[in-house]
C-alpha cells in the first residue's frame, strides 16, 4: 500500500467521519445536560432534506445550511417541549422525531419536487465546493509533507473545517466557562443547580438548541457536502452510530473526535475494498459494509470498558425535597 492509497483512505475517513462528529457533539451537549437524544437521526434527516431543498430553490448553499439548522432546531424544540417542559419520556420523544422526519421528508419531497422523495441534484453554488488551503498548491510537490497537506488537510468543504473546529470549541465551552459548568451540573444533579438559584429548564433548553444547530450542520453536510442532494433515508443510521461513538467517547469532545473518525475509517475501508482476499478466504463486501454497524453493537454491548453516562440522563427534573 503506497502513501497515496493511505492518504486517500484517510481523506475519505475525514469526509465520512465529519457528519458523525457533528452529530456526536450534538448528542454530547444534549446528554451532558441530561437529555437523552435518540432523535439525532431524525434531526439530521430533516436538516439534510430542508437544506437540500433550500439550496436547490435559492441556489445558495449557505441558505441551505441555514434552512437545515432551522429544520433541526424545530425538531429540537419538539424534543425539548416534550421532555423538558412536559417531562415526557425522552426515548419515546426521540423515536417519534425519527419517525416524523423519516415520513415528513419523503412526503414533502414528493409534494415539492415529485421525484419520489428525493430533491433534484445540486450543482454549482448550491453545494459545497472543496476549499484549497493557503499554500497547498505550492507545497504539493514537496515529498511526504506536500501530499499530506494537499490531499489530507486541504481540499475539504467548509463544514469539515467547521466540524473539526467544534471539537476544541466544545471542550472549551464545557470545561472553561460558566455555561459549561452549569450544563454539566444539570446533567449530573439538576437539584444542585436548582438550589443554587439557576434555572434547570433554561440550561436544558440551551443544550437542546445547541444540539439542534450541530445536527443541522451534520444534516446539511450530508446533503450538500458529501452528496449532491437529498435521498430518502440518506442518514442511514448515522444518528445511531453517532450515539454509539458518544458512549465510546465517554461523553468527551476530544474522544468524540477519535471515536467518530474510527467509524469514518471503517466506512472508508469498506467503500474502497469491496472483496478482501486473504489468501483463499474472501471476506465478502457485505461484511465490510456491515463493519461500522457491527462495531456499534460491540460498543453498545459494553465491550469497550465502563463508560459512565451523566447521572441524571433521561430523567425529567421534578422538584422534590
Amino acid at each position: 500500500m503506497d502513501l497515496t492509497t493511505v492518504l486517500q483512505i484517510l481523506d475519505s475517513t475525514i469526509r465520512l467521519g465529519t457528519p458523525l462528529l457533528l452529530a456526536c457533539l450534538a448528542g454530547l451537549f444534549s446528554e451532558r445536560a441530561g437529555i437523552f437524544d435518540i432523535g439525532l437521526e431524525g434531526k439530521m434527516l430533516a436538516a439534510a432534506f430542508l437544506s437540500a431543498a433550500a439550496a436547490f430553490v435559492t441556489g445558495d448553499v449557505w441558505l441551505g445550511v441555514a434552512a437545515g439548522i432551522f429544520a433541526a432546531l424545530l425538531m429540537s424544540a419538539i424534543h425539548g417541549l416534550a421532555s423538558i417542559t412536559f417531562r415526557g419520556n425522552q426515548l419515546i420523544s426521540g423515536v417519534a422525531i425519527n419517525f416524523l422526519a423519516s415520513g415528513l421528508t419523503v412526503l414533502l419531497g414528493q409534494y415539492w419536487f415529485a421525484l419520489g422523495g428525493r430533491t433534484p441534484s445540486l450543482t454549482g453554488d448550491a453545494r459545497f465546493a472543496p476549499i484549497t488551503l493557503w499554500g497547498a498548491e505550492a507545497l504539493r510537490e514537496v515529498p511526504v509533507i506536500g501530499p499530506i497537506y494537499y490531499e489530507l488537510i486541504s481540499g475539504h468543504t467548509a463544514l469539515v473545517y467547521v466540524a473539526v473546529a467544534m471539537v476544541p470549541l466544545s471542550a472549551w465551552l464545557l470545561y472553561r466557562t460558566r455555561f459549561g459548568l452549569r450544563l454539566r451540573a444539570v446533567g449530573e444533579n439538576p437539584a444542585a443547580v436548582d438550589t443554587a438559584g439557576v434555572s434547570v429548564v433554561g440550561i436544558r433548553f440551551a443544550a437542546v438548541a445547541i444540539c439542534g444547530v450541530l445536527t443541522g450542520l451534520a444534516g446539511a453536510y450530508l446533503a450538500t457536502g458529501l452528496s449532491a442532494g437529498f435521498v430518502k433515508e440518506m442518514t442511514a443510521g448515522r444518528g445511531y452510530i453517532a450515539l454509539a461513538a458518544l458512549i465510546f467517547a465517554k461523553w468527551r469532545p476530544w474522544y468524540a473526535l477519535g471515536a467518530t473518525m474510527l467509524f469514518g475509517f471503517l466506512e472508508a475501508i469498506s467503500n474502497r475494498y469491496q472483496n478482501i482476499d486473504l489468501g483463499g478466504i474472501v471476506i465478502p463486501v457485505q461484511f465490510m459494509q456491515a463493519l461500522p454497524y457491527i462495531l456499534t453493537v460491540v460498543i453498545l454491548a459494553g465491550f469497550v470498558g465502563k463508560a459512565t453516562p451523566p447521572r441524571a440522563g433521561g430523567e425529567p427534573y421534578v422538584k422534590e425535597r
Partner: protein
Amino acid sequence: MAAERQQGRQAAAAPDSLAIELRGISKSFGPVQANKDISIQVRRGSIHGIIGENGAGKSTLMSILYGFYRADAGEIYIGGRLTPIPDSQSAIRAGIGMVFQHFKLVQNFTVLENVILGAEEGRLLRPSLAKARKALADLAREYELEVDPDARIEDLSVGHQQRVEILKALYRQADILILDEPTGVLTPAEADHLFRILKGLREQGKTIILITHKLREIMEITDTVSVMRRGQMTATVQTAETSPEELAELMVGRKVLLRVDKAPAIPGRTVLKVENLRVRDENGVERLKGIDLTVRAGEILGIAGVAGNGQSELLEVLGGIARGAGSVQLNGVELDLSGKHSDGQSRRLQGIAHVPEDRQHLGMIMDFTAWENVAFGYHNEPEYQKNALLMDNEALREDTRRKMERFDVRPPDCTLAAKNFSGGNQQKLIVAREIERNPDLLLIGQPTRGVDIGAIEFIHKQILALRDAGKAVLLVSVELDEIMSLSDRIAVMFDGRIMGFRDPATTDERDLGLLMAGVDDVKGAA
C-alpha cells in the same frame, strides 16, 4: 402544659433582633395540608431547633423559607423587613443558605466547582475558581471546615460532603443557615465536629435553624426549640427550660416512654453459631475478616460500630443476599454460604427473618401496594395460594389488614402504595411481615432509621416481645442509644472484625466508642 405557653413570650422580642419571622404560613399539596398557619420568630445569632415527627411539615416549612416551594399564604420577614421569596435565588440574596438532608452536590465535580456553581463571578471559570479557593481557605481556618478543594465529591466521606454544603452557603454570604436533619448520615464523631462548627458560626453572629427529630441534639446544641405536629406549630420554648420528655410529648401528642423497659434475658440454647466468616466485595476487598459469634435463643445481640465496618455485609451474608466463606450454623445445621441455597428464600424457609438496613431498596418495592409488599418472601406460603396456578390475593389482603391493625400502621389501607406511607409506617409493615412468621432468628438492621419517635417505641417493643418469646435476635444499629437499651450483649465491629463483646450493664459510651474507633480490646471480656 407547654402547649399553652407558646407564642405569648415571643411577642416580647424586639423586631431588630429577629433574623427571621414567619407569619401565617400555609401550604397544601393537593388535599394534604403540610403547613397550617405557621408563625415563628428566630432570634439573630441563635441556634433554633425545629423538631417534629416525620411528616410533621418541618422540611416543607424550610423549603418555603428557601424558596424551593411557594407558600399558599403567609409572609416572610428577614431582618424585620417583609421579603417575598419566590425562588431560591431570592433566598440566597436574602442571606439564607440551606443544607438539605439529601445533599445537592454534583458527584463528579470537585469541591471548588460545587462551591462556585450558580455563584460564578463571570462567564469564564478560571477567575471564579481562584477566588473561591482563597475564600475556602479563609473559611476553613475560621470554622474548622477543612476540605480538600480539588477532591471530587464522590471520593469524600459523607461528613466532608456536608461540610461542602455548609461552605457553599457561607461562600454565598449566608447569614442564616438552615440544616435539615444534618446528623442522620453522620457518625457520632462527625456529628460532634458538626456541632462544633455550628457553635463557631453562632459565635460569629450567624443564625442557625436546625431541623431534626432527635431530642438529644436539640437538648445539646439549640437555644430555642419549636415543636411541630401534623403541620402545625405546637410550641416554642427555651431549650434550657424544657426536657426531652416534655418535647417528646409535644411532638407525639401523648406521653412517650423514652427508655426501653425490659425484663432480664433468659438465654437458652445456641441458635446461631458463626465461625470464621469471611466476605469479599465485588472488588475483591475483604469486608468481613473472620467473624466469630453466637446468638442464643431469648437473647438480643447488638452489633455496634461506625457505618461501613462490615455490619451491612454481616447482615447480608446471613440473610442470603451476599456470599461468603466460613461456617454458619442455625440450630446446629450448616447453612449454605456460597452455593445454590445461599439466597433469601432458602434462609426464610430455614427460619431466618431479615429486616434489611436499607428498607427502601432491599425491604420493599416502593411503587407496590402494602399487601404486595407484605407478600414478598412469603408469596409461596400455602395459605396465600388459591390453587396450583393462582395466588389468593384476597387472603393476602385480609392477612395484611390484620397485620396493619396489630402493628398500628397508618393509614390502615392495604391497597396504598408503599411510598405513600411514612418511614415509620413502612418499617412497621416490614417488621410485621418478618416477625409475624415466627422466625427462629431475626436479623434486623437500623430498625429505627428515619422512623419517628412514636414508632420507635413500638418497634422496640416488638423486638423485645420476640426475644421474650424465646427467639434469637441479631440487631445492627449505628445508634448507640438503641444498641445500649435493647441489647443483652453487645459486639463492636471495626474494619470487618469484632473488636470485643460487652455487657450493656457494665459498659458505657466511652468504652464502646474506643472499640468502635478500632482501639484494641484491653478488657478482653467475651
